[in-house]
């Protein structure tokens, strides 16, 4: 959940092509309906945020102070901030080092390492957590938590840093070299400053992901704000007790998000010219390549080998009564798979449809209002799944009774969570549709809707499909909102892994985990081969 949420900004195109002004004038002002629809979508995102704040404010100062200034909140704050700081630093070191070796040295097999270094992003963090917890119970502490979040989140730094290294102008380094600077000085004085935006941006994404991570920590029994919010929910159901904690968490996340926007907006180290690109110089590693190769092999073993290996191990243990007290039957597995796929499809469809009006507005009628609405939708990235889910539960029981416990409500929650993810692809796809074709269609007598349906959507089809596929994977691997909002009787793959792992029935969890990871890896691979590596892994400068 948190992972895919956090991945989103990486894939946002850094360059923001603007529609030529000519078309804006030809097309005139956006229709009332388009504005209205886009505004409604933005309001939908604001709803859980506003509701959580309202609930928190409803406490009154004295009660709120009592809830916030409990000793346990201090402990949780310390735990949360420490794991965020540590995970950010370790991810930065691992991610940046991996990126530098892949992009800047003659490391043997670096194309394979490039894919393997990014691949852990397709493994949901709570699955990684499941693998480690079932491997050794001694990982249930700070070190275990750090290990799991680092292996899950370092690609968020690896990807932008690798892209930045690729796009760097070699002339700067060559100049520095000709001026007599050694390799280390060059790295720290020339390369590192250029990496700063990518590195800082990535670190903030890791921080954001760690702040809102729930499943991985809960399975490791490491207590943070998110796990405590869930604990409050388990003891009292109504969200009011948890809303104070949720507000604090939301605030922390929004600060990260705001910083991330700033880092991305302020600094770019592009070349002035856009001439032919020259590959940057690569270093020869010599004998040094062996330890580096060993490190890469180790990294892959830890990040991919471990979760996949443990799943296979527990799959083989299945049937051994001493270790597996829980029967797993084919109908149960099939049931959970169908639920997950059904929710995934519904979530993907709704999210993509909801992203359309805002995408159209941004592509065809850019302006202050469109940008404002876009920013509001991106706020969803700063809303942890548990906060959104809790707000929706309370909202439904107080005001939306017919929707309460319905699959529809869960799908709406997915849409709020993953709108930013869909909006990126939808907007990019719509920008690529040549506006003159629309003009031609209109001049041939089609009305606005017919033009949209017969010209724009088919042309933007692949991009919209990419958006839907990304949301589909994210929904399949989402845990928090699913746990709180799943309709009665619905069991998804993620919920089953959760339930079985929490009860230490690791072998029982294995088939569900295997299907989940299978779906995730295969869809990611399909996306990459269909839409190109940059579409999925990002083209961040």
């Amino acid at each position, binding site marked *: 959940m948190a992972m895919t949420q956090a991945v989103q900004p990486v894939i946002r195109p850094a360059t923001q092509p603007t529609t030529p002004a000519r078309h804006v004038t030809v097309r005139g002002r956006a229709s009332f309906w388009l504005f209205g629809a886009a505004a409604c979508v933005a309001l939908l995102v604001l709803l859980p945020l506003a509701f959580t704040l309202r609930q928190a404010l409803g406490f009154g100062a004295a009660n709120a102070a009592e809830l916030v200034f409990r000793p*346990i909140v201090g402990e949780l704050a310390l735990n949360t901030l420490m794991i965020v700081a540590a995970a950010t630093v370790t991810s930065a070191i691992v991610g940046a080092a991996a990126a530098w070796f892949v992009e800047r040295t003659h490391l043997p097999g670096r194309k394979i390492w490039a894919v393997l270094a990014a691949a852990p992003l397709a493994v949901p963090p709570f699955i990684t957590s499941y693998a480690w917890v079932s491997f050794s119970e001694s990982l249930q502490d700070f070190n275990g938590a750090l290990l799991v979040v680092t292996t899950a989140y370092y690609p968020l730094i690896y990807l932008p840093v690798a892209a930045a290294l690729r796009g760097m102008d070699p002339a700067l380094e060559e100049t520095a070299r000709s001026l007599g600077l050694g390799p280390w000085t060059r790295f720290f004085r020339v390369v590192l400053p250029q990496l700063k935006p990518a590195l800082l941006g990535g670190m903030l994404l890791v921080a954001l992901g760690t702040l809102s991570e729930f499943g991985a920590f809960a399975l490791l029994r490491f207590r943070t704000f998110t796990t405590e919010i869930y604990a409050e929910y388990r003891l009292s*159901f109504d969200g009011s007790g948890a809303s104070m904690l949720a507000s604090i968490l939301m605030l922390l996340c929004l600060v990260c998000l705001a910083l991330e926007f700033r880092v991305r907006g302020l600094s770019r180290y592009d070349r002035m010219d856009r001439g032919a690109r020259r590959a940057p110089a690569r270093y020869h590693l010599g004998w040094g390549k062996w330890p580096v190769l060993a490190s890469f092999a180790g990294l892959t073993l830890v990040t991919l080998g471990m979760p996949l290996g443990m799943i296979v191990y527990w799959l083989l243990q299945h049937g051994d009564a001493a270790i597996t007290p829980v029967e797993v039957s084919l109908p149960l597995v099939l049931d959970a798979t169908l639920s997950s796929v*059904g929710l995934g499809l519904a979530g*993907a469809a709704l999210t993509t449809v909801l992203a359309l009006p805002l995408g159209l507005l941004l592509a065809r009628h850019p302006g202050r209002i469109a940008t404002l609405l876009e920013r509001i939708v991106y706020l969803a990235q700063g809303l942890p799944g548990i906060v959104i889910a809790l707000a929706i539960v309370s909202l439904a029981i107080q005001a939306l009774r017919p929707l309460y416990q319905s699959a529809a409500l869960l799908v709406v929650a997915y849409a709020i969570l993953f709108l930013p993810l869909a909006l990126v692809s939808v907007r990019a796809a719509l920008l690529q549709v040549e506006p003159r074709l629309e003009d031609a269609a209109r001049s041939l007598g089609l009305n606005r809707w017919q033009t949209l349906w017969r010209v724009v959507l088919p042309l933007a089809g692949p991009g919209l499909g990419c958006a839907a596929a990304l949301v589909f994977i994210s929904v399949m691997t989402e845990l928090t909102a699913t746990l709180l909002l799943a309709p*009665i*009787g619905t069991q998804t793959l993620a919920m089953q892994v959760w339930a079985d792992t929490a009860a230490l029935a690791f072998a029982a969890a294995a088939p569900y985990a295997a299907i989940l990871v299978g779906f995730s890896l295969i869809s990611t691979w399909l996306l990459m081969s269909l839409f190109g590596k940059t579409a999925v892994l990002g083209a961040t400068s």
Partner: protein
Amino acid sequence: MVSRFSRVAGIAALLAASFVGAAHAATLTLYSAQHPQTVTLLTKDFEKQSGIAVRVHTGEGPQLAAQLVAEGQSSPADVYLTSNSPELMLLEGKGMLSKVQPATFGEIPAHYSSPTGVWVGVMARENVLAYNTKMIKPEQMPASLLDLGKPAWKGKIAIAPSDGDFLPLVSAVLALKGEAATLEWLKGLRTNAQIFDDNEGVVAAVNRGAVATGIINNYYWARLHTEMGDKGTHSALYHFGNADVGALLNVSGAAVLKSSKNAEVANKFLAYLVSPRAQQLMANSKVTYEYPLHAGVAPDPILKPFNQINPPQLDMQKLGDDSQAVALLRKAGLL
């Protein structure tokens, strides 16, 4: 292209619709705070036996009780199956449960069930102290649960105050020793104890040697033992004696909601839960490790025989509905 797009959209919509539809086809709705694995075992067997489909909503006991209160008359729930009696007492106090049928009620000794006959006990677990056999010896164990709040136990104890199973223990201490002593005990635990999210976390920490002892319900240790085998188990159980509050029996029970629109089916399920067949199924499951409350069914042999445990004298009424437990935990800084 257009047709392909609309076809995809159509299929998605259809799937979504069938999915929503499927969720409403079932006949009995169960709110369950029991372990999902146990419940799956029971509901599948019940479905096979009765032909009645069961849909389950799983959650923590206090959460589900509060949810039922919030849902009120329009709750979809027919039966509430939970792992601690105070949650049922809460609903009993609010008049939300309907009378259990006499035949069903009579299957279980009356002192394990509702004082007014609106819910029935199904299974029970004993509170125990799990200890790491390499870190501490049996003769060092405390005589009373309240000793664990004393300075001698600093750093040697693990608890899970946010686990639903901990609340009845707080309520029991409150009922037997009064508020001042309870608060003192909890504040002592706050100084002494490592805190975990749930009992599974506590027992795992004790077993791996991260902490010497931990307050748990007995069956968490049995589950850990099943999963780890003899070789991986480095812990054992200490049972409080002399009817100490530490040996409190937590009773799992079930009730039919007054708001249920399927009372007949719901009563059938309740009758099934206390039937020898279901009780035997649970006792043999190697998942639950609770004491079956039906007199004719023997518990799993890994458990200390039921007639040898020595719980405190405390009736359901006196144990109450946990209403003060959370407030006390907050006051002591444990929540």
